C-alpha cells in the first residue's frame, strides 16, 4: 500500500476515535468550555517543544556530524550507547532528577525533553551520513573539494532526508511526552490531561488530549512539507526514504 495513503488512514482513524470519545464524554460543548485554557496551554506546550527541540536539533546534528568524521569515528559507538541508555530512562525519572538540580518549573522539563529528542536526531544523522556511497565522496575529493565543502555540498544534502526523518520522530514524540512537564510546574497541555484524571472529568482530559494529538499531527505534516522543500531535486526521487516524504 502507498505509505502516504496508509498514514492518511491512521490519522483518520485516530481523529475518528477522538471524536467518538468526545461524543461519549458529553460533546464538544463540554470540551470547548476549556477553550481559554486550551489556547493558553497550547502556547506553553508549543514553547516547551520548540525550546527543547530546537537546541536538540542543533546539538544532535552537530554531534552526528562529529561522530562520522574520520578522527572521531571510534567514539561513535560508545556515544550512541550512552544516548541509548539516556533514552531508556523513563522521561518522568529524568524530569524528577533534573528537578533536584534545577528546581520546579520549565527548566527540568526542557532538559528532559531535550535529552529525549537527542537520540533519534543523532542516530539518523549518523546513519544518513554513513550510508553515502563511498564513490560519491571520492568523486567530491577528486573534484578538489575540501572536507568542509564535501560536508556542506555533498554529504549533508544527501543525508538530509534521513536526518529530517529523525527530527520529525523526535519532535512528534516530544509533543506527546511534554504533558509530563505539568507534574513539575512546567505547564503545557498536561495541565488539562492530569487535572482531568484527578477530577474524573473526561471532557477536561480530552480538552488536553485532542490539542496534543492535533499538534503532533500538524507538526508532522509541516515537517514533511518542509523536508520536501529542502531536499535537493536531484535526489528527491531516487531513494526509498524520500519517496515516503
Amino acid at each position, binding site marked *: 500500500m502507498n505509505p502516504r495513503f496508509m498514514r492518511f488512514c491512521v490519522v483518520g482513524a485516530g481523529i475518528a476515535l477522538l471524536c467518538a470519545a468526545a461524543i461519549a464524554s458529553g460533546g464538544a460543548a463540554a470540551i470547548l468550555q476549556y477553550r481559554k485554557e486550551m489556547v*493558553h496551554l497550547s502556547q506553553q506546550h508549543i514553547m516547551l517543544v520548540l525550546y527543547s527541540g530546537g537546541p536538540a536539533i542543533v546539538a544532535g546534528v552537530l554531534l552526528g556530524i562529529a561522530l562520522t568524521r574520520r578522527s572521531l569515528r571510534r567514539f561513535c559507538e560508545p556515544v550512541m550507547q550512552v544516548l541509548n541508555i539516556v533514552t531508556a530512562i523513563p522521561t518522568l525519572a529524568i524530569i524528577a532528577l533534573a*528537578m533536584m538540580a534545577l*528546581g*520546579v518549573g520549565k527548566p527540568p522539563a526542557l532538559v528532559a525533553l531535550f535529552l529525549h529528542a537527542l537520540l533519534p536526531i543523532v542516530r539518523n544523522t549518523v546513519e544518513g551520513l554513513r550510508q553515502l556511497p563511498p564513490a560519491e565522496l571520492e568523486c567530491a575529493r577528486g573534484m578538489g573539494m575540501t572536507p568542509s565543502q564535501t560536508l556542506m555540498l555533498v554529504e549533508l544534502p544527501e543525508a538530509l532526508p534521513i536526518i529530517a526523518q529523525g527530527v520529525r520522530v523526535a519532535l512528534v514524540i516530544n509533543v506527546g511526552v511534554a504533558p509530563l512537564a*505539568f*507534574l513539575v*510546574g512546567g505547564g503545557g497541555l498536561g495541565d488539562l490531561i492530569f*487535572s482531568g484524571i*484527578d*477530577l474524573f472529568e473526561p471532557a477536561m482530559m480530552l480538552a488536553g488530549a485532542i490539542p496534543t494529538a492535533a499538534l503532533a499531527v500538524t507538526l508532522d505534516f509541516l515537517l514533511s512539507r518542509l523536508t520536501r522543500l529542502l531536499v535537493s531535486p536531484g535526489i528527491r526521487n531516487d531513494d526509498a526514504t524520500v519517496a515516503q516524504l
Partner: protein
Amino acid sequence: MNYRILAFRNVLSAAALALVAGAVSAQTVVVGGKGFTEQQLIAEITSQLLAANGFKPDKRVGMGTAVLRQALDSGQIDVCWEYTGTALSNVYKDTEKYTPEQGYEKIRSLDAAKGIVWLKPTRVNNSYGIGMLRAKSDKLGIKSISDLGNAYKSNKTMPIGVNAEFSQRPDGLPGVQKVYGFTVPLDSIIKMDFGLSFQALRDGQVESAMVTTTDGRIISFNLVVLTDDKNFFPFYVMTPVVRKEVLDKNPKLAPLLESLSSKLDSETMQKLNAAVDVDKKSMESVAAEFLKQQGLIKG
C-alpha cells in the same frame, strides 16, 4: 521408595495444604488512597493493621479525590480515609458552614443512603490552607488570605503553587477567589504535583502555595499558614469510610478501623507525615512503628 513416588506424595500433600488454606483463606480488603503522603501513609498503616488481624489487604493508592470516590462507589475499593469537608463539597456540592460534628453527621447520613459508611472519625482536621515562608510573610506583611488578595488586587505578580485538584475544586482556589474577591492571573497559577509545592515554596520559586495543615513540612520548612479570615475552608475531619456490604461481611472490620481512628489527632498525624517527608523514613517502617507504639499490633 523411588524419587518419583516421593515427589508425587509431596505434590499431593502440598495440594491438600493449599485446599485447607483456601478454606480458611483471609478475606481480601482493598484499601484505597490518594496520592499525597498522609493518604499513602494511612493506607499503609491500615493495610498493616488488617494484615495483622487476619485480613488480606490490597493497597491501591495514588488516586485523585474524584477517582477514589468513583472507585468506592463502584466497589473497586472497600476502605479509604476521606475528609468530611472534601466529601461534602466535592460529592454533594455542599459548602455550608458546619461545625466539625455537624459536618460529620451530615456526610454520614448523606452517604448512608448510598451504602457507604462513615465510621467513628479521627481528631485529625487536615484543612487546605495557603502557606508562605515565614520570612516572606513577615517581610511583605501578608498574614491572612485577605492580605494576599489585596496584593493581587494591587497587581503584584505573585506566583502561587497549586496542584490540579486544588486549582479546580469548589473548596479550592476557585472558591477562595470568589469568597475573598480577588483573581489570580492565569500565568501566576503554577500547577504542579502536590508534594512539590513545598519544595517550590522553600526554594522561592513560588511566593505562596496550597498546603494541607497536617503536612510535616510546614514546621520543618518554617512556613506559616495564612489566616483564613473569612472562614472559607470547611473542617476536614479524617474518617475511615467503608462500603456497607464489606462491613456486613466482616463484622471485625469496623471495630478494628475505629481502634485506629481513635488514636489519631492532628498533631500525631503531622508527626507521622514529617517522619516520612522530613526524616525520609519509609512508609512501611513509620506505619509499623506507630502501630506497635500504640499497641495495635504486637512487636
